[in-house]
């Protein structure tokens, strides 16, 4: 696999996932991007260690899914299997604990843990049925 820096240079301006808006940072829709920002730090395409947290709706069931990149060399060239998705529990305590366990391990972007926890909270509030608008 090509070096992450090199891949980033190829992909940073030229990707079908890039979404641009006026007066707004450049965003990406690629899988495995925690913040959706078009940054080398968060890139789901260029980076060797990828972290993504999204909500997933299958029919009526809503779930929270964590995306990471497989470490196995053999999987790097297999587009269907290279990104590993794990379901995250929706429990108030269990979810964050599970996240801390998976992310906190040193090989998997521990510096993004805080951000992931914040996003987890936001996803959970988006699942709420009776949404009250904060004034």
């Amino acid at each position, binding site marked *: 696999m090509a*070096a992450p820096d090199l891949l980033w240079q190829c992909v940073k301006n*030229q990707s079908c996932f890039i979404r641009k808006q006026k007066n707004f940072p450049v965003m990406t829709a690629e899988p495995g991007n925690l913040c959706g920002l078009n940054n080398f730090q968060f890139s789901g395409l260029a980076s060797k260690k990828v972290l993504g947290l999204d909500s997933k709706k299958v029919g009526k069931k809503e779930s929270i899914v964590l995306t990471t990149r497989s470490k196995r060399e053999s999987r790097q060239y297999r587009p269907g299997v290279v990104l590993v998705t794990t379901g995250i529990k929706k429990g108030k305590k269990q979810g964050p604990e599970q996240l801390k366990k998976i992310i906190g391990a040193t090989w998997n972007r521990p510096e993004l843990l805080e951000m992931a926890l914040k996003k987890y909270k936001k996803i959970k509030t988006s699942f709420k049925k009776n949404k009250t608008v904060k004034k």
Partner: protein
Amino acid sequence: MATARPVVSIYNFENPSEKTGTMPMPVVLQSPLRPDLVREVHRDMAKNKRQAYAVKPKAGYDTAAASWCTGRAVARIPRAPGGGTHRAGQAAFGNQARGGGMFNPTTVWRRWHRRVNVTKKRHAVACALAASALPPLVMARGHKINQVAELPLVVSDGIQSLTKTKQAKETLKKLGCGEELQKVIDSKSIRAGQGKARNRRYVKRLGPLVIYNEDNGITRAMRNIPGVECAHVDRLNLLRLAPGGSFGRFVIFTEGAFKKLSDIYGTLKSGAPKKKGYTLPRAAMVNADLSRIINSTEVQSVLRPKMERYTHGIKRNALKSKELMEELNPGSTERKAVQQKASQKGTPEYDEVQKKKKARIEESKKYNKEHKKGDETFYKTLMKAFEAKAAADAAKKAAEKAEDEEDEE
């Protein structure tokens, strides 16, 4: 770039869930990634299929117009001669005139085509092939490859003998291209612009490029599937490998074609057997992984320790902040406390101070007694001396005066 060549699986075209074999990846597919080179070569190569367009050479000048010069109360622009029609006397020739020629008429002898160095073209193709083997680049180009088993996708040679489009479509779907093919079908739309009236009515996305070695029907089977293109491995076209100048096309190789890549391009050491005098491009940086380089033991072991940069916090005024004063002038708070206490009656510090004061006063008194009383005080000595001198002067003057009186008499 991997030091050992990764091994690529070959999928059975009839039953793509099973693999019929493996092959080491040809060195071409590990060429350095050079999007700039591909873009440049594509830009120039794309110009080579252009057809000339221009206005007629005579356009706007096919009249016998001549200027009426001055004196006729009209502008001096050439005017069409004669009479009997509206056209007579109308302006002609200028770009501003109705029916006149255009400014800077387009010509057929415009340089439509560009020649590109052969080596450059070859390097670009190698680079584009390498990009097609990297899932992030293929994904970034917009291909839907989530169902595809592996990149590069190599299929057994049987696919080259497919004759029916239906079969071909089935095979592609089984290989995981279903999403991709659907994307192409969904993307068909009417072209924006005049092209729609010029026999280029529809546009759609591009799908997979199937690269084969022997055409036993595959081109004809695949040609009617929207989005799918076929190419012979001997004649790879950059315009197909990097459409629009963006590399990372989704490519499907047949086994024979994949094998032939090594025969055509060879290795960095051997050069390309089928391309005379050509060797695959070398990367400017063999190991481009900056974080690995920086974190390697070779680099880390010779680094000096990290400098502690003094970061200035908010500036504090030592005269206002007691803590800062203590930091800068250690012992100042203690001294201040002592001074404070010294002004309070009853404390030992106060007594200290009073004692010192008393001692000072005693000293002073003693001194005064010695030096400021009696006959030997400074003032008295001074006055004595003065009086002595004054008396001496007065005597002198009296003597002089007595002399003068004598002289007068």
